[in-house]
Structures are given as C-alpha cells and as structure tokens.
C-alpha cells in the first residue's frame, strides 16, 4: 500500500521517529495509580515508559493473563502472550479472567493501536474493503473489541488520510458507533473513546456529538497539516494547545527499552 501522507515541512528535522513520538505522547496520558489494559506495540512501550517516568505505580494488564508486570528493557515480547510479558507480575490468570476484569470495571484505561479509525472513534482491524470480498483480510480483533467495549480508551496510531476515514469499512472495536448516544443504545453503557494519539497531535471527542476533534498539535504541526491528513472534517480550535516535545530523558528510556527498534522504527 502507498501512504497518502500529505507533506509536512518542518524547519528542523525532528530528533525522534514518528513511533517514538507516539509512545512518548501517549505515555504522558497515563496517570500514577491507574490500571491500564495495554495492547502490544506502542501501547506496551508507552505503558512501560510511563512506569519508568511519572507513573511508577502504574498497573499494566496484558490480555495473555498478566497483572502488574515490569517488562525488562531490551526484552520486549512479540505479543502480549509470551513469558516476557509476565516478568515480575503480581498475578497470572487465564485470558478469560483478565478480560473479565474489564467487564467487572477494574480497568481505568484501555490502550491499543489502530489500523483504521473513523470520525466517531470506531476502529477497524478486520477487513480493508467489503467484509464479504475484502481487499485485505487483517488479523482481527484479538482483545481489541473487548477492551474498546468495556473501558475508556486511548488509541495510538499513525496519522494518515487512509487511516482516518469518514466511516470505517468494518467496526472491529466500537467507539461511539454513529455518535450521540448510539453506543449506549447498542448495549455498551460504559467506556468509550477518550483520546487518539497520533504523530501529528492528540484528538478527543465532543461531549454531545461524540465526533472527533483536535485537543493538541505536536511541535511543528499546523492545523492545515492535521486536516490534510484526515479523511473527514476535523475541527481545530483556534487556541489549540501545542504539546511539549519529547524530552531527551523520555527518548533515552524508550531507546533502552527497544534497542532493536522492534516497535519504534
């Protein structure tokens, strides 16, 4: 697939990759004392980064059945189901039990990556094109649907026009469905999209319409840049905040965590 990314001109080349920016910006959204259900990739990395910076008491849950681990730097797991995920955990349970913690309400934040998202925060990781005759069969939901159905969500993903679409081809993991109160009407009274962190900015959702809006832009990104890379009308407030750039400390920790750039290339 070709990327449709519109050109963004920066006066100075950034000293970090897009994935590193994603990990840093989303780590900052996690708070000390929270319980976060983290997917593999950037969420896993960002949760560990938060533990090593401002949130040492962050409890991480992995869908493999892990409660409260400290993953070792340089030994990131290839999914959230290998022994590397379980290092120094408080408790190991079955997959079903750890997912039921979401349903019971023990999870503050669900945190995952995304392949395609729409205006109302619905995520698609199942089919590109029509589900009956897909152009691409993607790997599917995993725990994504359960996490998105039952927790307040942070999603970390690359900001490209083909990924930010008016309507997803398929709802794998529900956001606010058709906006307004349609999520609750579908039988999902709890949880929902909180933030989408991209390499261009941080997005939120309007209280009533539940449509995506811009909360902050990353350094060097303009309102025109983020609009040009979004496949639907994205409002940018005039007084939109600009995020502080990743610090050398944050980047150093990330690079120590992922020296082989498994997730940060």
């Amino acid at each position: 697939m070709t990327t449709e990314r519109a050109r963004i001109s920066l006066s100075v080349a950034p000293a970090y990759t897009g994935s590193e920016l994603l990990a840093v910006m989303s780590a900052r959204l996690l708070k000390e004392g929270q319980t976060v259900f983290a997917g593999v990739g950037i969420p896993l990395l960002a949760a560990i980064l938060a533990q090593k910076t401002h949130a040492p008491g962050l409890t991480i849950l992995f869908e493999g059945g892990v409660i409260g681990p400290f993953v070792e730097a340089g030994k990131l797991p290839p999914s959230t189901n290998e022994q590397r995920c379980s290092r120094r955990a408080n408790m190991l349970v079955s997959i079903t039990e750890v997912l039921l913690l979401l349903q019971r309400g023990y999870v503050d934040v669900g945190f995952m990556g995304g392949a395609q998202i729409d205006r109302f925060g619905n995520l698609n990781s199942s089919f590109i094109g029509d589900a009956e005759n897909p152009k691409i069969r993607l790997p599917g939901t995993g725990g994504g649907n359960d996490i998105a159905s039952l927790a307040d969500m942070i999603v970390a993903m690359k900001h490209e026009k083909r990924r930010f679409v008016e309507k997803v081809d398929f709802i794998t993991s529900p956001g606010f469905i058709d906006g307004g109160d349609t999520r609750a009407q579908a039988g999902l009274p709890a949880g929902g999209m909180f933030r989408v962190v991209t390499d261009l900015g941080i997005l939120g959702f309007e209280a009533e319409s539940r449509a995506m809006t811009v909360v902050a832009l990353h350094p060097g990104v303009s309102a025109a840049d983020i609009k040009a890379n979004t496949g639907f009308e994205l409002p940018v407030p005039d007084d939109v905040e600009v995020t502080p750039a990743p610090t050398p400390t944050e980047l150093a920790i990330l690079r120590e965590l992922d020296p082989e750039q498994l997730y940060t290339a």
Partner: protein
Amino acid sequence: MTPPSYLDLREKTRARDRSLRDKVMSLEDAAALVADGDSLAIGGCTASRTPFAMIWALIRAGKRDLEVSRSIVSTEGDLLYASGVSRHIITSWFSQGIVWGVSKVMRAYTESKRARFEEWSHMAMGLRYRAGAMGVPFMPMRSMLGSGVLDRAEGARTMECPFTGETLLLVPALNPEVAIIHVQRCDAYGNAQIDGLTFMDIDMAMAANKVILTTERIVSNEQIRRHPDQTKIGFFTVDAVVEVPFGSAPHECYGLYEPFYSHMDLYAQMTAKDPDAGARAYLDRFYHEPKNWADYLSRIGMAELLDAQRRGSGIYDD
C-alpha cells in the same frame, strides 16, 4: 452454529474410560484419535505453548477438514490451511505476530475463499469454551455489541436481561470433539501441571470430548500427589499423553524456552513473496521430510534450540 445437546454431551463423557490408567502413546497413535471433520481446539496462545508436535503429527497423518478453534492463531493456522488439514479456523486474531505483519498465507487462503477465518472477540472465545466447560449452552457477556464482529458471528444472539432489562450478548458453548494441549509436565495418567500463563487451556480441557496432552516430560504420579494444588488439568479429562521434548518449537514453552526467533523470521521470509509456494516448501522441509520429531528439531538447528532454551530459562533469573 448451535450448542451441542446436553444429554449427548453427557453421554459422550459417560462413554469415555475415565479411570486412572496409563495413557502414554506415540504422536502417531495420538493423531489416530482425531477423525477427519472433527472440531479441534488448540491450546496455548499466539506463540506460546502451541502444541506444535501434535499439529505436526496431524499434518503428517493427512487429516482433512478439521474445524479448528484457538484463542489466538499464529503460524500453525497458516500451516493447517496450507496442508489442507483445516479450511475453517475460529479465533479472535490470526497472524504470525504483530512484529511480522499480517500473515501472507492467511490472507492468500481467506481472500481467495479457499479457507474461512471466523472471527469472535477474545473474551467471546474464552466464554464459549467456559460455557462448554460448565455444561451450559451459552454465556452472557457485555462486549461485541454494536460491532461488525457481532454482525458476522454465526450463532451469537442478543437478549434483554430478564432481571435488568439491559441488552446482553449470548455466546454459544464450544465443546470441541478434541482438544490438543501442550504442558511442561504431567504424569502417565494425564494429571498436568502448567507453569506460567494458562490462557484458555483449563476451560478447553473441560469443554472437549477428548483431550490429547503433549508434555515436555512425564513425571511420576507420586510427584503429582505431592503438590495436587499444582494440577491444572485433571487425568479424568485426558485420553492420551505424549512425551515430546521441545513440543512447542518454534514457539515458546514458559520457563523452558522462548520462541525460536530466527526460525520464525525464516518462516516469514519463506512465505512473504509467494505464500502458497512458500508454505508448501516449508511443509516439505520441516513437516514431510523429517524422519521424526528429533529430525524436525535438527532441521531447525541446535544453535537455535540452545538459544531459545537459554532465553527461556532466564525468566526465573530475577
């Protein structure tokens, strides 16, 4: 997809020899317990405790049309499609692993409709096995609602809760004909201890009509009886025990060996350009040509095996 009749389910259990008896056999004899067309549940998750030796034996035995289910499916799913052992896999996620990208073999088979990947949420898979383990036709749950996954999930139903009036999802029980599960150790009767992550294996063993255990090593019943609290799968659910060292290779077995990463890279390379030809070549080299399981491991390579073992045993270093 309808749940099995409760009386049939009980009758199948009653008809099994559930006595405390020696069930040790070869991979080949265990493979003979699986019939073409059976529903088959696979223990472990993604690249963890995959019962690869048993899958290897099923592929070598030329089984056909198994309806396969697993929590999350990795490369074993590709190989089950490519060998013709299965054309229908029920799971929540299917690809080698996120670091290798979307499986080319899964894509080639599903996009051409030569095989089916039936998608349920992860918790739905877990509760389907749990309903099967509990002897009830369904479990209620609160996810999958409002999604395309629900629209396409055959057999899922919504209901208005008779107590609260809320909308709930009901997922049908999964009672596989056979479950294949790999463990670190068990006795000859099938009392199994599992170290680390248990995934959905305990419910799966209880739900199945037949259980084949492969184990890194067989221990004495006396050793099991010294720590009965460590027995995760009871002998009464188990029909066959096969001792297979490195039985999850090239995936991991908790505390013993990590995934064989270089070999998994090799698989990804072999299937990247031409998934059909690549999977066939891989099957020939690692499934059909080896004389036995030891020969399979030799083809993967001693250096890889030792590296995986060194990394795997490091979990207890802290």
